[in-house]
């Protein structure tokens, strides 16, 4: 009886091994102090991925996520009018206010707890300036390759309640019209979490084709077993879910993104 049970177990395991390939979770760490840095006087910026004159052939993109810039702009200064096309551009102010104007006729101020997205599509021109003369603005500028090229340019901005992300992941970007968050022309979901010390949860990735790029805004966390500090990034893929643990009070951004560019 013992032998036959063992044999059955071997057959079962053997069948499992041959018919169901087991994927092993993969991760890539992007420590904060290894980011590309540029100080233009009025603009102090850190690039997680290659951008402008920062070029690292090993850090071009994470799937459809192409740009993650951590920009600090002096009071009253900013980016003059310049064009974009075929890119989903998400701005997340972390402190201060950013004034946006574009060729679609949009004039808006983006503040902390706002999320702005611009689908550049066939082409748009815009400018971004620090609204305040007396204090800096710090914001994340995130570029995602579009799912569909050459769509009509569009702009959207929403306000999110900070209390709705305490010990939970608040969805701020979604590809589903009418869903929570601003709409994106890509199979991507963004979440912000304000996690109190010792809080633990699991994050389930939306699609098997997707991975997650996690970026720590503040505090210390352990994601997928990897300890992370402020402004560290971690790419996670080939898994259905991963663990999230707050080692201190912490704020994180999760970007659930296709691993292939369509």
């Amino acid at each position, binding site marked *: 009886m013992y032998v036959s049970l063992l044999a059955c177990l071997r057959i079962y395991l053997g069948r499992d091994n041959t018919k169901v390939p087991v994927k092993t979770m993969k991760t890539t760490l992007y420590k904060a102090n290894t980011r590309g840095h540029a100080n233009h006087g009025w603009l102090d910026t850190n690039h997680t991925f290659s*951008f*402008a004159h920062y*070029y690292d*052939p090993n850090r071009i993109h994470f799937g459809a996520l*192409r*740009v993650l810039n951590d920009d600090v702009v002096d009071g009253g200064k900013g980016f003059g009018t310049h064009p974009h*096309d*075929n*890119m989903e551009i998400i701005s997340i102010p972390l402190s201060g206010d950013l004034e946006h104007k574009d060729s679609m006729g949009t004039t808006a101020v983006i503040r902390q707890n706002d999320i702005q997205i611009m689908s550049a599509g066939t*082409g748009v021109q815009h400018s971004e300036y620090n609204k305040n003369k007396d204090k800096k603005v710090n914001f994340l500028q995130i570029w995602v390759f579009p799912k569909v090229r050459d769509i009509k340019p569009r702009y959207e901005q929403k306000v999110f309640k900070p209390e709705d992300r305490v010990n939970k992941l608040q969805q701020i970007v979604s590809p589903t019209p009418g869903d929570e968050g601003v709409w994106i022309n890509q199979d991507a979901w963004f979440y912000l979490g304000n996690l109190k010390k010792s809080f633990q949860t699991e994050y389930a990735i939306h699609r098997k084709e997707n991975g997650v790029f996690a970026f720590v805004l503040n505090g210390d966390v352990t994601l997928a077993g990897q300890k992370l500090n402020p402004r560290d990034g971690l790419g996670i893929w080939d898994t259905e879910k991963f663990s999230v643990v707050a080692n201190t009070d912490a704020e994180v951004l999760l970007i659930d993104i296709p691993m292939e560019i369509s």
Partner: protein
Amino acid sequence: MKLHILVVGRNPQIMETVLRLINAQENWEAFGALTDEDGWQLIQQHPMDLVLIGGGVDEHSEQFFSTACEEINPAIRVIRHYGGGSGLLFTEIKEAMNLKN
């Protein structure tokens, strides 16, 4: 030796920006085409190393340039340009041409 780049796009403002950015680089020279006909003429007149397919250029036109370059010189790389400005431009060119810096 100069790197010759043809930029094909449909948006004049983005074209002007991209050409200015490329031509500001030492040893890079860019030519712009807002139509397929202009692009075809430029490929015949100048030995290109790279073709950047910008916004608004449909798959039919993209295929036209891929086929044309394959016939003229298979070493010409044809890639899509995203973003319309300086952010991604230099990395795209360096990646396509396997440049170190």
